[in-house]
């Protein structure tokens, strides 16, 4: 089947053959590899995207279910290639090491700062609770986002 939806501000259509996830469609069909596949069961948050205003794990969403939806991935944040403020904050604070969790953490932080104007340190921790980072121990990520 063909799935049509809005992706990062543009109308797109994608061919879906097998029953597949939004994550697989983004990566394999639409050639947007920014969303990462690290567990495929909604535990690590590396595949996080914003779907119709909600932060979701794209590995848990069926591709066919995003028909007529609005999806934002890490490739769609920031303005004309410029870094989004949460990306800049994480760069400056040393919040990126291997970077595999980074797109998911960026999406979580973008969603949080969209919803809450001045999130507290506890708000940030609670928001990030669904994102596993294996490298940083989270300290530099928190310092970056708390400085925003």
């Amino acid at each position, binding site marked *: 089947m063909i799935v049509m939806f809005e992706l990062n501000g543009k109308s797109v259509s994608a061919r879906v053959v097998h029953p597949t996830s939004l994550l697989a469609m983004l990566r394999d069909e639409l050639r947007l*590899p920014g*969303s990462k*596949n*690290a567990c*495929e069961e909604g535990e690590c948050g590396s595949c996080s995207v914003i779907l119709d205003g909600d932060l979701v794990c794209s590995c848990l969403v069926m591709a066919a279910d995003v028909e007529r939806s609005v999806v934002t991935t890490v490739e769609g944040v920031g303005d004309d290639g410029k870094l989004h403020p949460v*990306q800049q904050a994480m760069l400056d604070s040393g919040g990126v090491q*291997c970077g595999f969790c980074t797109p998911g953490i960026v999406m979580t932080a973008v969603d949080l700062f969209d919803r809450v104007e001045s999130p507290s340190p506890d708000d940030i921790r609670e928001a990030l*609770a669904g994102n596993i980072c294996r490298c940083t121990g989270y*300290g530099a990520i928190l310092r970056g986002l708390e400085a925003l």
Partner: protein
Amino acid sequence: MTAPPSTTLTDHVTGTVNGIGESTVRPDGIPKLQGSFAYASDLETEGMLWAATVRSPHPHARIVDIDPGPALAIGGVHAVLTAEDVPGRLLFGLEHPDQPVLASDVVRYWGEPVAIVAAEDPETARIAAAAVTVEYVVLDPLVDPEEADTRDEVFRRIRIRRGDQDVRGSVVVEGVYEVGMQDQAPLGTEAGLAIPDGEGGVDLYATTQYVHADHSQIVASLDLTAEMVRSHPTGIGGAFGAREDVNLHIHLCMLALYTRRPVKQVYQRSESFTGHVHRHPARLRYRHEADEDGRLVRVEADVLIDGGAYASTTSAVLGNACYFAVGPYKCDNVNVDGVGVRTNNPPCGAMRGFGAVQVCFAHEAQMDRLAAALDMDPLELRRRNALATGDALATTGQRIDTPLPTREVIDSLVAMPMPEDDDSEDPLRLPGGTGLTTERRDVRRGVGYAFGIKNLGFSEGSDDYAQARVLLSPQGAIVETAAIEVGQGLVTVVGQIARSALGIGNVEVRHIDTSRIGSAGSTSASRQTQLTGGAVLAAATALRDRVLTEFAGEYLDDDGVWRDGELVVPYAELASGGWEETTTFRHPPTEEPDENGQGTLHADFAVAGHRAIVDVDVGLGLVRVVRIDTAQDVGKALNPESVRGQIEGGILQGVGLAMMEELIVEGGVIRNPTFTDYLLPTVLDAPDVEALLIEQEGSWGPHGAKGVGEPPTISSTAAVAAAIREATGLALPRVPIRPEHVALEGGV
């Protein structure tokens, strides 16, 4: 963090921006943040097939027959290969080849590869792998490490005898300790793309920590000449030891050469848990003897680690466990008997800390027990025995001739301020979190200290070296290396080293393949900043000196060569001159141990300490690690923020081992190979961390730098355990410590 005052924007020698000592940002940070950084799992090329692996469902079985027919009958399947299709050496292995590329007669662990498949898409490849019919005769697995020891199923035994066998102490403590099987769980799973070159050779882009070791094993098993295989560095999503060994590398090259098509594979998470080695589970029996003043008189240890089915790095891990069995303490009379056994459990190998983690958990528990038996402050006991430069390592007798600030680490850590008592009822600050299970009145606070030591770089007579090249191009200075960036920040720090040495700010670091440069060795053993950093410093310094000599210049910068305040050679002219320098850097030589385990086995050491502060609901067994303070011997912090990142990340892996991380293996089968069941610390499990960097000059690393990656993981686990013991009064001789170990023991 209390960092040295080194975050100014100019280097002290040349005035170069983003040189050593600065917390310069990562050059790969922006593409990683934007999702455009190419990891191995993101690579693709025209006409690419997808691979899948057929794995044994039994930990021990004889293979009677493999029938690829049903898989080959599926449309879109291009190949099913078995051991018969391995063109060259049937075995591979990082230290010695003992592991089949594909099992032929017997499978020796659950998940061992038996056949490999290539198909048009990943789904078809997986369906085809499931359709390959393998007939097994199931055999009894050997899964008890003690039984394996009795049966002499061993990879290595180490016997250390030092000092006088008759000297005894008046105060004696004994203990038996266990460490569970931890997984590295890097976020990126194993992935790779092999591309045939059309002339019988192949290019491989795959997750790794060590391209040259992959290359030599691929060449042997493919029966090709070295020139016909090129192993390329690529984007890696973490490693922590999981990527030192070959896994999909030879498979992908075989499939690419057979199908004459590019072949890609990405392990799913559950396959990743069987597709790489783990931290060795360990059983440790200790006896410490001291005099009435608390001086260690004698330490005896039996170290047993389970290597699983194949050797991997068990020999070296056992070496570390035995050589660091006493910790950063002096003792003249030491016996250690170590064994790394062979079983039908999952193969174990490298993970951050590499043997030192397991024994640290035990020797630090012993030091606390000894302090209690002496009625002495446990920190005073450690001070009295602190190992220093000029002392002999308790196990091997090696005279330590690089800075070893154990005493400074202890004193600095103790002097760090303690957090206030917490009377908050906020669930985020209570053990158990928002489950709302705990009330503050049921919570007890505990504080525990632990200290650890480990070697840096390869040991026991290894010819450990790294090659690097520095050249001047029209785009700026280029550093070329085959050293693998796994996320730790090598790409940042070697750029800083080159900038400071050359005086040129415009430096790019390029990771190049095995055909274009010599080995940089493995990204492991905390060694790349010292080894590849050392090579880059030597190459950049030699190149600058040659340029300045050639043009009688005084200094070099982005504009060119300067003399008497005038630009004498513009950079553009220099860049067309073919200036380059390739250097191989070696650390001081080490020896193999003698028959008593004695000798100069190690090139350098690092020491660190951790203070854990925990809150425990003893009745429910719930623990919150509130804070970890650390002091770490770093030599010289070349990038303080990056060092801090290693410290914080390493500590959380240590907390994970203390609290939750364990692969549960029953009858040789991993019961929890998913992120749902193998628990990793989230941000809500992460303690606040304060870090003090202890800088002392004198190590052979560039500018005196020491490796910093492993020490944070070595004693943090032991410190958390000590803190929980203090809060509960329980012995807690095993990690991870789960709620039932606290609650069902009843506490104090």
